[in-house]
Each structure stands twice: as structure tokens, then as C-alpha cells.
């Protein structure tokens, strides 16, 4: 039995986010709200259009506005060209993103309307759904969509037996020793509620609880980056 701790290839501490972390609000002039979020080598952009009338009419909700997210990876965002357009994975991530964001939105009064959130991944190096959610939250805020609070998202993982924060591509999909890699993307509201969690891998419930705590702390840091970017955009 070896109890060798996993050493991260890029020299990060286990509870350290990738760098750089960059956020910029208002990157797409045509949009009602937009933002870019970069963490390490993963870059996402998001644009919000709406609230606007929902078409076709049968999709309208007479009680509230509909949040409609559309996540997609650009064909050149990955090493082996991705086929453009939607697939099962992007369909699921789009829905997951809606679920992650909608709890903080106050869109009841915009009946029969839709708020479109388009997320594109420009460069992918793991953690793309989290980066997309972070960008989308800022874009929604800039668009002036009424919100209770922001959400922040990060992936936490277990590499062999070691908990690590913010997996990169190697840790997420190439590491294959010992217990392998477990990936847990989580989204927190600023006040610490979970709006999204997924898990792939193998982990005990005790370690999962530790992982959730780790993600909670990291989301506080990401929140500060989002908040600063939103504040900076007001000066423009």
C-alpha cells in the first residue's frame, strides 16, 4: 500500500484555482448583457438577449419568463475538431446551466417572454460548463435581469485518493492511476446554496462532503472576480 499524495503536474496546491482567472463584462456590444470568463486555459463567453417575446407562441409561459440556455463548443476549441452544432452532451449541459441559473432569477413578471443565454466555449481545457455558468451569471447581471444574487461555479475532483480543486484537462480526462479521477462540478449561490451538482467517478460520501466544502470556499473567490468585473464595467 502506498499513501503517496498526488502531485499536480502544473505545480498548483490542491486547493488552488488555475490561473489566470479573468473576467470581463460587456464583450459583445449587440447583446443586452455579455461576459467572458477565463480560468486557466478554459475560456467561455456568454451573451444574454431578452427578456423578449417568446416565439413560437405555444412555448410561452403565461406565469413567468422562460430561461433558455444554449451551450456549445466552437469546433476549434478542442484539440480534435468538434463537430459543430448540438449533440447529447451539449444538450444536457444547456439544461444543467438553466437549472444552475434559474433559482437566482426573479423573472416572474416577464410573462410570455424568454431570456436567451448563449454560451460558447472558445478554448476548452476542462471545466467548460463551470466557466460557462460563471460567464452567464455576469451576463445576466449586466443585462439587468432581476437577480437575488450571483452564482459561481467550480469543479472539484479527486485524483487517485487526493482531493483537488479545479481540474485541468489532464486531471479530468487523462489521469488513470489508482482510483482514477472523479470530477464534481458544483454551482453555489453567493449565500451558499447549491443550484447545480454533478459527479462522475468514485468517491465515499465522507470525502464528497469535504469536496463540497472545498468548492464552497473556491466559489467565494470566483464571486469576487465576477463582482469586480461587473463593477469595472460600470466605469466604461
Amino acid at each position, binding site marked *: 500500500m502506498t499513501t503517496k499524495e498526488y502531485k499536480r503536474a502544473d505545480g498548483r496546491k490542491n486547493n488552488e484555482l488555475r490561473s489566470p482567472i479573468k473576467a470581463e463584462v460587456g464583450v459583445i456590444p449587440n447583446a443586452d448583457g455579455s461576459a467572458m470568463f477565463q480560468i486557466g486555459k478554459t475560456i467561455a463567453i456568454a451573451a444574454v438577449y431578452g427578456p423578449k417575446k417568446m416565439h413560437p407562441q405555444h412555448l410561452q409561459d403565461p406565469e413567468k419568463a422562460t430561461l433558455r440556455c444554449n451551450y456549445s463548443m466552437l469546433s476549434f476549441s478542442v484539440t480534435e475538431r468538434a463537430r459543430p452544432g448540438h449533440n447529447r452532451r451539449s444538450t444536457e449541459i444547456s439544461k444543467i446551466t438553466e437549472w444552475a441559473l434559474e433559482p437566482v432569477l426573479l423573472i416572474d413578471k416577464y410573462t410570455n417572454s424568454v431570456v436567451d443565454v448563449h454560451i460558447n466555449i472558445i478554448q476548452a481545457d476542462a471545466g467548460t460548463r463551470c466557466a460557462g455558468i460563471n460567464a452567464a451569471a455576469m451576463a445576466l447581471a449586466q443585462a439587468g435581469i432581476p437577480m437575488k444574487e450571483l452564482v459561481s461555479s467550480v469543479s472539484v475532483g479527486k485524483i487517485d485518493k487526493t482531493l483537488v480543486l479545479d481540474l485541468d484537462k489532464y486531471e479530468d480526462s487523462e489521469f488513470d492511476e489508482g482510483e482514477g479521477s472523479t470530477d464534481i462540478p458544483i454551482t453555489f449561490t453567493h449565500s451558499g446554496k447549491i443550484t*447545480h451538482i454533478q459527479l462522475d467517478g468514485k468517491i465515499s460520501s465522507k470525502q464528497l462532503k469535504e469536496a463540497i466544502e472545498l468548492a464552497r470556499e473556491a466559489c467565494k473567490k470566483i464571486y469576487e472576480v465576477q463582482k469586480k468585473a461587473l463593477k469595472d464595467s460600470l466605469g466604461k
Partner: protein
Amino acid sequence: METTKLTEERIKKYLEKGKRFDSRKLDEFREIVIEKNISKNAEGSARVKIGKTDVLVGVKMDVGVPYPDSQNKGNLIVSAELLPLSSPRFENGPPKFPAIELGRVIDRGIRESKFIELEKLCIKEGEKVWNIYIDIYSINDDGNLVDAAGLGAIIALKNSRIPKYDEKEEKVLFGEWTNKNIPLSKETPITITVHKIGKTFVIDPDKEEEDISETRVTMSTSDGVIFSMQKGDKCELEVEELYKILDLVEKTEREIFKKIAGFLE
């Protein structure tokens, strides 16, 4: 027909008192009825009924090319179809989100648990491997299709034989089987979903309960080890609530495993 507001309020009132319309406890499954080998042309198959919910799962195999990132492993392909026959709410046409999610959630539970020993399903590295197709069909949707599909998948796999393969002709002899089963590990992933309705947590909802569920967490676990998890729907959860769900899943998984153990031999 979707569940009405009136029914919703009544269900919630009952749940707060720890009661359900069908007199089950909040953490109690409906009766589970399992039938193996429902199609003799399948490599393996199972029918799982949970109350009035009814799901068929079949396993088929053929030989294909390995994926670039797993040159020495068989391929696992899980898909789900919500048949129009099984509910007035389902329509023909390309799969919509619920069917896609169902297939993907079951896929991840099986894949991440390494239940199928895919590295033993390689015929020639980089060139030829077995494809395993797990196909899920709803026959009657009265809630909790996902847990039924999860049980169906592991039972169908447990009862699957590998077809004969002619190495000279390089083709599968469909309809003829070897006496070898699909190689499986001992850790059997069980899929359990917990729903939050009002302030209560409910296991195995019927359709009315599922309709008014505010959020749900589906987990694939074996003996306290978690392989996959997905939170669905747009309602936030306190961290403490998630921990409660974890405990509930762990307890339920052990109960369900005991119940179905006979079908896994």
C-alpha cells in the same frame, strides 16, 4: 394530464405529515417486479416494474472500432427512448431532453462504476472491439423511470451472453451465443433518486409526485461509494439538505440491493 394545483397542495399536506396517497412511507419504494430474458434475440434483457412504472432494457452487441481514447476497450453505448405508447405526454420524433438525460445518467452510472470490464472486450487493440448497446424503453410512465432503468440495465447485463464471432470471416454470428457472459465487476451500481417536494424528501415518486418535485438528485452508488450524481431541476439546495439526501440514498441503496440480489446471481 399534468398534476393540478389542488392535488399538489394535498400531496404536500400529506407529505408534511409523513404520509402519501398510496400509504407508503416517504422513503419507501413501490413494489418492484423483475422479469429476466424478455427477448430471446437480445444478448440479455430485463423488465422492471416499480408500481405501475414499467421499463424494458435490452443489451445487444456487435463488433466495431474502438474510440481514439480507449484503443484497448470495448465501447459502451446507452440510449433511452420514451415511447409514445407509454404516456400521452410522449410524442414521436427525435429524442427530447428527458430521454437524452435518462440515457446519459444511466450511462455514467455504469461507466464510472466500471461495472462492465470493458478492457476484456477488446478483440484486437486499436482495430476491433465489442460494442455494447444498452437500450432503454419506457412501457408505462408512472414516475421514477430512471431508477427502474438503472435496475433494468444491471440485471440485463448480468444475464447477457456474448454472441459468437467468426474470426476468419470477421463477422458476428448474430443469433448464436457463446456460453460466456459479459465480464462484470462485483461492485454493482444501483441508481437511486431523491426528490425534494416542499420541505420533504421523497423516494420513488409516482407521476403526480414527480410532477410537483422541486428538485431531484440521482446517484449511482454501491455500498456507500458514489460513482455518479446529477442534480436536476431548478430549485436550490442547502448543503445540509444535500448531506441528508446522501444518507437517504446510502440507506435505500442497501435495501434495494438486498431485494434484487436474487436477480444478480
